[in-house]
């Protein structure tokens, strides 16, 4: 078992890491909020969201606010656990190398 075992490949990108960070401390976040916070383009953010959805790390909820479609995202239990393990792994690596 190496140190890298718990490093999750799904989080191996700034945007995906960011999406999960935001969803860990917020019950929900909609597309535009994520876009603003992460400073990402529509296409880029959408593809990373899709990747996380495929892993079943996030939930997608489509709804209408008035007439406007609004998509909001939340972290699943699986996603939250995986993310916590990922952070723990990061911390262990950093502590080892101090």
């Amino acid at each position, binding site marked *: 078992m190496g140190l890298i075992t718990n490093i999750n490949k799904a989080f191996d990108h700034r945007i995906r890491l960011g999406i999960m960070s935001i969803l860990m401390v917020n019950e929900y976040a909609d597309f535009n*909020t994520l876009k603003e916070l*992460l400073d990402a383009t529509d296409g880029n953010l959408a593809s990373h969201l899709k990747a996380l959805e495929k892993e079943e790390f996030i939930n997608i909820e489509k709804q209408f606010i008035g007439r406007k479609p609004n998509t909001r995202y939340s972290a699943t239990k699986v996603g939250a656990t995986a993310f916590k393990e990922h952070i723990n792994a990061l911390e262990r690596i950093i502590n080892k190398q101090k």
Partner: protein
Amino acid sequence: MKSKDYLKDLNEIKHLMNKSSRFMSLSGLSGILAGIYALTGAFFVNSIINNIKESSNVLERFVITFDSVLTLILIAFGVLFLSVITAIYLSWRKAKKHNESLWDATSKRLLINFMIPLTTGGFFVIFLVEKEMFTLVAPLTLAFYGLALVNASKYTLGYIRYLGITIIILSLISLWFIGYGLLFWSLGFGVCHIVYGTLMHFKYDKKQSNN
């Protein structure tokens, strides 16, 4: 990835968690100014009350008291109004400097969670005044304000929590010293704001402008 990248990752995670859930643009300086307004207000209120106490003539005393009520209310609302305007202006300036908006999900959430205990306290105090039970006004305003701060602290800079707890303790102590309401008000709204405002100013405002 090297360990340096991992550290960068962790910092980025922390930064995003704070930025997405907490309103970080609250200005420490506005706390200091609110404290100064409160102390100035308390000084005027104190001199008016002394004026009432000193006049020996009962009729004169009655007339002064009657006139003073309006002045006292004006001072109270003046302090409140100035504090709110200052807080909004300085937070707006700080938000603009960091390219963040003043009115977003985090500030809305902060305001809602701050206003729930505060409005409850407001109604409580209005009913007490209406029933002419003035003795509990000072302890209750302090207690509800402290609770509002603790409740709001989850959505903004962490120091607000300690300010809230200090004010709650102060409100409980003031229950033993009924009649010294103004003194405890000055301590809570004046001195505490100045002390914590200064701490926050040096911890958050200064540090951020160096970055």
